[in-house]
């Protein structure tokens, strides 16, 4: 029996995985979706066998971990999409990095702002104030969203920064994806951001984002996967990588990994073996469940790198994963 805790975003996928894995092997994995912060705290204090997070741990947090070096092992991808409520707009809204940052910074306050109308001629007739909606609870979704805004806007980076919750310049806060979606639905002329999976399942209207190549990209499983593949070439060796604003002509720019957190050096051999086996299964056979549940599978180059991480876990200088 393994204990894990952390991010809420991948909880549906993880419970499916651990259920399937239990049927296959009889090994039980207990996952508590208490939030990324709780997952980081849990693994740092060694109260769980593994943690899970949507935002990578900071260097400071890595140093504070009691059990030594912590590995970040990507499990799936998540994308964040701007969702809005403008009845006049018949085609998907097209946003650039500048207009999205402008809206959430409060520089663009009206829907008929020239910068928005340039890409969306229909907005010229919408002479309305913009209401923005953001997550009030700390969230990996927020992390990915502001990570993108920081990557593309220096003003955002200097004034607001990146974290699972930030000091929003304005707008309404709502709890959870469903809270933000509900708020956007009930407020005409509002815009918020939600997990892509959530938006797709609930058929919310969402915007197309302009990527580095200048193309407006519809968020789909393929375009998110393309972003991860595009980022794979130059990814940081510890895989604590941000893949927002990734290169590639078909890459959707607002996406990120969700990781499991485990110690490189473990004490209990039986647990280490069980944990490495579960993780190995998750990044290989388990990925086929991701699509159906609406998560984006990690592309092959990343799977290879994640597998290397799993193989590096050891107990008393002995590799924990049973076969080479």
């Amino acid at each position, binding site marked *: 029996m393994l204990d894990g805790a952390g991010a809420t975003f991948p909880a549906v996928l993880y419970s499916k995985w651990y259920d399937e894995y239990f049927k296959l092997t009889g090994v039980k994995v207990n996952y508590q979706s*208490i939030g990324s912060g709780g997952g980081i705290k849990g693994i740092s204090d060694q109260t769980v066998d593994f943690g899970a997070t949507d935002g990578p741990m*900071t260097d400071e947090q890595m140093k504070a971990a009691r059990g030594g070096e912590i590995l970040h092992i990507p499990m799936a991808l998540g994308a964040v999409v701007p969702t809005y409520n403008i009845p006049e707009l018949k085609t998907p809204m097209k946003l650039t990095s500048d207009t999205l940052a402008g809206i959430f910074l409060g520089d663009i306050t009206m829907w008929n702002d020239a910068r928005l109308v340039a890409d969306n001629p229909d907005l010229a007739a919408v002479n309305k104030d913009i209401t923005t909606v953001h997550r*009030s609870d*700390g969230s990996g979704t927020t992390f990915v969203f502001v990570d993108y805004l920081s990557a593309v806007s220096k003003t955002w980076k200097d004034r607001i920064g990146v*974290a699972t919750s*930030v*000091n*929003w310049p304005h707008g309404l*806060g709502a709890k959870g994806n469903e809270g933000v979606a509900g708020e956007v639905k009930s407020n005409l002329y509002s815009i918020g951001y939600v997990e892509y999976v959530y938006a797709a399942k609930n058929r919310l209207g969402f915007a197309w984002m302009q990527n580095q190549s200048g193309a407006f990209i519809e968020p789909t499983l393929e375009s998110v996967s393309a972003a991860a593949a595009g980022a794979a070439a130059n990814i940081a060796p510890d895989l604590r990588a941000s893949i927002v604003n990734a290169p590639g002509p078909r890459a959707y720019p607002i996406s990120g990994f969700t990781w499991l957190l485990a110690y490189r050096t473990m004490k209990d051999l039986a647990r280490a073996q069980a944990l490495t086996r579960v993780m190995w299964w998750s990044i290989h056979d388990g990925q086929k469940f991701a699509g159906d549940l609406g998560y984006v599978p990690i592309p092959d180059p990343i799977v290879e790198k994640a597998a290397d991480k799993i193989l590096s876990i050891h107990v008393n200088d002995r590799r924990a994963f049973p076969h080479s």
Partner: protein
Amino acid sequence: MRSDSHPSLLEDAASGSALSRNSDLLFSRGTAVIAGGSIVLLVGLAVLLIHDSLPSLSRYGPNFFVTTKWDPVFEEFGAAHYAYGTLVTSILALILATPVGIATALFVAEYAPRWLGDPIGFVIELLAVIPSVIFGLWAFFILTPIVRFTIEPALKAAIGPLPVIGGLFVGPTIGRDYFTAGVILAIMILPTIMSISREIFRAVPDTQREGMLALGATRWEMISNAVLPYARGGLAGAMGLGLARAMGETMAVTMVIGNSSSAISASLLTPGYTMASAIANQFTEADKEIYFAAIVQVALMLLVVATIVNLLSRVLVARITSKFSDAA
């Protein structure tokens, strides 16, 4: 004790009481331990909160209570706007709930026959049983649109142009704001205020009422000259308990207040935050030590404020009770 040589009723009783004195002692000690336990619990809670918030207490000092910047990224924490949100919504709730609660209590205790009054009181007390998340959902889906499209525009039109108090109703009506939070809180504290007020009215000695009636007073004169003055302190206590309940309420408020950390604004139409909803929203993802400490400090602040309000209301309730025993 030599009960065998001088048997008498008196001594029988005395010997019996030796046994019962022991069990009496045991019982009184037992209750004292249990009662002491809850004090230990409260003190332990306060100690824990102080301990966990030390990094934030020492880093921000008194500024924490007077500044309004809450920035987890750049580690600047001030919770004045959270405290403000808690106070504004709680006081608004009190202003809305008190007249309704006291009027209902008066009707139940003074006017209605028991067969009518008791069911009314019972139904209102049932409101206290409904989980706050249900109130929250109801407020989110039903109350907010009503407030947003009907009540707030009407209030804005009626009060907005007035000097001074007009400032309470400026800005766009979005329905996720202090006002909606105050309304849902008012509904939630209504049973507290109503049932305590009713007991206070019932505790007013009948001699007071009879005295007034004997002087030829009408029902209303009797209530306004004998019952209300007598109950004043107790009613203040009922309000205090309602206020304390409103300040601690989390779930329902979080769903309708807008959760916006923007600066303090006098307008009730501003989306805001309360201390409790800030804790509920941010606790799970507070991954940095200082962030966690700051949230614990908000909890400490809430505990202190709630304790003060509770103590004040206890004192007021105690005053009316002692008045009552003086009169008797």
